[in-house]
């Protein structure tokens, strides 16, 4: 019963949303791309999407400049 976030293994919590997970991980970046397994989740779905057990999650912090 665990998930991987940016390569780090942490406990899976039933019904945890992306918003909850970001809070738990103390990620406070304003603009991020969240990828769960093969899918990029749009920001507007962060409060609804629940994280499945065994998920591989990538959180990418987008920084201005280009």
């Amino acid at each position, binding site marked *: 019963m665990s998930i991987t976030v940016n390569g780090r293994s942490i406990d899976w919590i039933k019904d945890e949303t992306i918003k909850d997970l970001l809070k738990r991980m103390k990620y406070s970046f304003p603009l991020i791309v969240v990828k769960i397994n093969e899918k990029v989740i749009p920001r507007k779905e962060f409060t609804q999407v629940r994280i499945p057990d065994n998920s591989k999650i990538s959180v*990418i912090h987008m920084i*201005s400049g*280009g």
Partner: protein
Amino acid sequence: MVNTMDNKKSKKIKKILKNSSVGIAGVGGLGSNVAVSLARAGVGCLLLVDFDKVEKSNLNRQYFFSDQIGLKKVKAIEDIIKNIDKEIDIKTFDYKLDEDNCDKVFSYVDVIVEALDSAEQKTSFIENIMNKLPEKPVVGCSGVSGYGNISRIKYMNLGRLHMIYDDKAKDCQDDVLMAPRVALMANWQANVVLEILLGEDK
């Protein structure tokens, strides 16, 4: 110097790249450098999207020249690329990418490069393109500002999303943007594009 190294490899690469197409979202510091590098490498078709004009303040890092100030960036970069190789098929789109148009313009390219400026634009673009074009490889970049700190820059392969990434970099509003680091990260992106198109260099 005559290239005698591996004629077979070189011919194969040339053939694949000539028949490849790459879409570049944004032709600023990242996109202008990516476009020129891929043109020199031999990519046959480049599709460039940007709504902006060349300004004097761009010249410290973007691949433009002082006599191009005031030109549309897509036109300016097209002129530069034609000067390198007039055979390259260049398609330019002079408008701002948004949720509704981003997938249509890029639906026929082999690889998409995210070379946008603001974090908001980068985030929306990657969200949209990854969901609307579920098969397409995307090469993004985040954290270009400053100079030095080379070992913080890393390559992340997240399935078909590839990132050149320095998560410790500051927002460009609070830091400087300088040619070496911007061009370096742009060329990392171009290098990843080649690997996607050609497969691993063994």
